[in-house]
């Protein structure tokens, strides 16, 4: 399996970051960074990571099913994560979530037909003092008002 030179460099660095014989430690970071490039944790990625860290694909599978950010199926190009946990809830994060579902016509962990946007109702993302908060891929959006959410979703459709 071939990756971009940047990702290869990152993988090399990760494999050297842990004590001798502890390369398995690199597995979860490699899966997450790999997913960012490949689009999901594909069977091929599992085999490749298993080979590089020296475990079986089954062992990788066992671990990855635990972590909520690792996905076996591709998400939208823009993965919109809306927090509805307590601090965001107190600022109507739940209503923001329902609004996004209505606007896009999709629900939790679903992808729009054009593959552009996926939605996820997420647990606390660490933006509690600037609630309600939304994360698009890795970018944070704070103090999101309903009309701002609409504009944000529209802008993702128009992005190249």
């Amino acid at each position, binding site marked *: 399996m071939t990756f971009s030179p940047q990702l290869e460099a990152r993988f090399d660095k990760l494999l050297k970051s842990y004590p001798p014989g502890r390369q398995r430690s690199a597995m979860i970071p490699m899966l997450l960074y790999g997913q960012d490039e490949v689009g999901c944790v594909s069977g091929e990625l599992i085999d490749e990571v298993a080979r590089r860290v020296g475990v079986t694909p089954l062992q990788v599978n066992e671990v990855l099913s635990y972590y909520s950010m690792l996905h076996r199926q591709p998400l939208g190009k823009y993965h919109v994560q809306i927090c*509805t946990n307590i601090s965001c809830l*107190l600022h109507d994060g739940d209503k923001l979530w329902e609004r996004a579902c209505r606007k896009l016509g999709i629900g939790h962990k679903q992808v729009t037909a054009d593959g552009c946007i996926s939605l996820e109702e997420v647990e606390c993302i660490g933006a509690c003092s600037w609630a309600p908060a939304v994360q698009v891929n890795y970018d944070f959006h704070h103090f999101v008002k309903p009309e701002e959410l609409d504009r944000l979703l529209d802008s993702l459709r128009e992005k190249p």
Partner: protein
Amino acid sequence: MLYNEPSPLETRVLTRRFGMPNSASLDTYLATDGYQAFVKAAAMKPEQIIEEVKVSNLRGRGGAGFPAGMKWSFVPRTSPKPKYIVVNADESEPGTCKDRVLMENDPHQLIEGVLIAGLAVDAHAGYIYIRGEYRYLIEIMDRAIAEAYEKGWLGKNIRGTGFDFDLYTHTGAGAYECGEESALLESLEGKRGIPRIRPPFPAVVGAFQCPTVLNNVETYCAVPAILRDGGAAFAALGVPKAGGTKMTCLTGHVNKPGVYELRLGFPVKQMIEEVGGGIRGGKKLKAFIPGGSSCPVLTAEECEGATMDYDSMAQRKTMLGSGGVIIMDEDTCMVKAALRIMRFYAHESCGWCIPCREGTTWLRKILQRFHDGGGVREDIGLIGDIAKNMLGRTFCPLGDAAAMPTISIVEKFRQEFEDHLHGRPCPYEAAPAAVGV
């Protein structure tokens, strides 16, 4: 960058560089006494460093509040095994967003704190375990680490002291449970984040089966100031038995939510009224959570005379926790709050211990039914019963974290559960619709 205006009532120790131009750069750090505490510590005996941290009364800032100096002293310094410093940057306790600003605005302060911990316990490598959602912080920390290597503040023979130290970032991939120390170590080793039975504690058997110091970001960030200005000066900022300041995240129904650095012992009322600008819309306070959703809830009456420190909160049978303050006004439905908190714990329970796995799931179902108007009177007692049967019966504190707020809400806001009986829709949500809002 800062996401909220600072408050004049803050005591700025850990945040003293916030707002300076390029506050995250090594140049700014060095120009403002940066790494001087490390230089000072490198000339001290390890026991002296630990003693200084003990004198400071620094207690763990992740939530448990264990004295940091004592934790460090448990590491068998003379063990032939390598020792490790691990930073818990898996900030995910609902209500908490402080480690984010510490790493974003002053990453070198964290690196220096880690280096000093390394000197104290003879560790030569460290890992910063950062939650996966905080990707931009991994980039910020990686840049700061690269800069520190380049200028000789990390690596071999740091600035001629003869001390070697390597530091790495490590990303999580979405799991609240990995903020629990032993689950974090499992995850760091490339496994599912399932807690380990203790003892042995991480100080003796931690990362890679070796002695390990594991503290929260904020705890390490306090260490440079302690070594620089002395443990006694840090202790004097706080209250007896708990020194220094606490990064406090005001969230919920206040006019000025934000992250503020307040001295330990800061009065709760003043914090809400003056730092937070009072309750939004001139409403009254209904409920107060001092340090993340795992803490028992306080009523407005219980907040009278309360101060933000470990003892004052313990007297009120709650905890200072992580500093994630959650403020709920008079219109908040406490059944809905309890439900949302339980949905979180049911989602995040790793499933290892049955009382937690089953307890959180059943409590979520019962609370959901209640909020939907399908609750019966017997359920009120059942919620408390299930929660109490989870307490102390799990490997890690997640079961307790789910049970404690639930027990407190059922006991203190029982009337709201009664109000949901007889198939009525949630009375708190129905009210605004009736007036056309």
